[in-house]
């Protein structure tokens, strides 16, 4: 029987997720610019192919695939070879083409027939959302997520959220957090005037998960998780260490939920 989890292949992250994402779920990966969304997305797809024999689609709007091939090669990931072996497709298109209410064929259909993927990364859903009129955003995003689900794809949808840098900025009026089954955030944390990176799981429908903000780094081998952050003021003042947790404030800042 197939595992009911889609493992990321990053051991510490799978542990935080109590085994991996729930299979077939739509997962939002939110983070500000340069935090490593693309890197984590690629690693999820590559590990799927190389460790679990689950083929993948990587969809990009902003970056040309040639740039993704080049950057991936720096991590030692040979995407072109995987494409030749029909385990991967790196698809580059215009966002509006994915929203076309074409009753018949969806743009992904032919790629799904070619590689029978189990996983998909969309880089990025926020870019796709920019092409939708505000009043149709919920409906269009819902349609898109439902399409991925009918194709039994475990999806990782990247979301660029400037708000996570600290500035409060609502990306959408309604928010789209209700649409997805899980939310991960990547956010910078300033400690003693140095910038460090933290990963947190905001929600994981139907499963327990680690609630602590955990430090990570991007190394030449990809994503590396370190230890959970502890509150530094706590250490300075001699009071007991308090573990930093992801909060509703993070969600609000990211624009994924709206202020009531």
């Amino acid at each position: 029987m197939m595992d009911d989890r889609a493992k990321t292949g990053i051991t510490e992250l799978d542990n935080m997720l109590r085994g991996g994402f729930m299979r077939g779920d739509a997962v939002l990966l939110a983070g500000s610019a340069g935090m490593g969304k693309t890197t984590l997305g690629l690693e999820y797809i590559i590990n799927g192919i190389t460790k679990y024999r689950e083929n993948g689609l990587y969809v990009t709007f902003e970056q040309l695939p040639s740039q993704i091939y080049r950057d991936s090669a720096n991590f030692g990931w040979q995407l072109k070879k995987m494409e030749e072996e029909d385990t991967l497709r790196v698809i580059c298109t215009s966002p509006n083409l994915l929203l076309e209410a074409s009753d018949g064929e969806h743009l992904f259909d032919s790629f799904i027939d070619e590689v029978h993927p189990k996983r998909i990364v969309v880089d990025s859903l926020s870019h796709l959302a920019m092409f939708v009129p505000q009043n149709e955003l919920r409906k269009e995003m819902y349609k898109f997520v439902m399409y991925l689900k009918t194709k039994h794809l475990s999806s990782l949808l990247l979301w660029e959220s400037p708000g996570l840098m600290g500035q409060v900025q609502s990306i959408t009026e309604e928010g789209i957090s209700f649409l997805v089954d899980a939310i991960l955030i990547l956010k910078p944390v300033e400690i003693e005037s140095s910038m460090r990176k933290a990963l947190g799981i905001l929600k994981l429908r139907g499963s327990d998960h680690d609630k602590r903000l955990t430090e990570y780094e991007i190394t030449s081998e990809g994503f590396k998780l370190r230890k959970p952050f502890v509150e530094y003021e706590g250490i300075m003042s001699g009071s007991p260490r308090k573990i930093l947790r992801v909060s509703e404030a993070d969600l609000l800042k990211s624009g994924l939920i709206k202020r009531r």
Partner: protein
Amino acid sequence: MPEVEDLMPKLLSSEIKAEILILYHMNPGLIDTPEALARRIGRGQVEVTKDLEDLLILGILRKKPLGSNEVVFLDRDRDRDIQKLLKAHIESLGD
């Protein structure tokens, strides 16, 4: 499959054609409208549409309707065949 003698002039008859081919070779998963392709290589839509026709006839690129749009994409098998053909032709010239 067209004769290689017909192929060469068709492929090399315009700069734009070469630019489109290079774009698709570097990005084989590119699937987009002719208008978007024109934008991507910074050329006019009319000239791009015209040169696309030749590449579509050769079968290296294919197009299909998608909703109210038409999208153009690379036929990977056909492209591989044509590349082989060209390589053989170039090698035979060296003899």
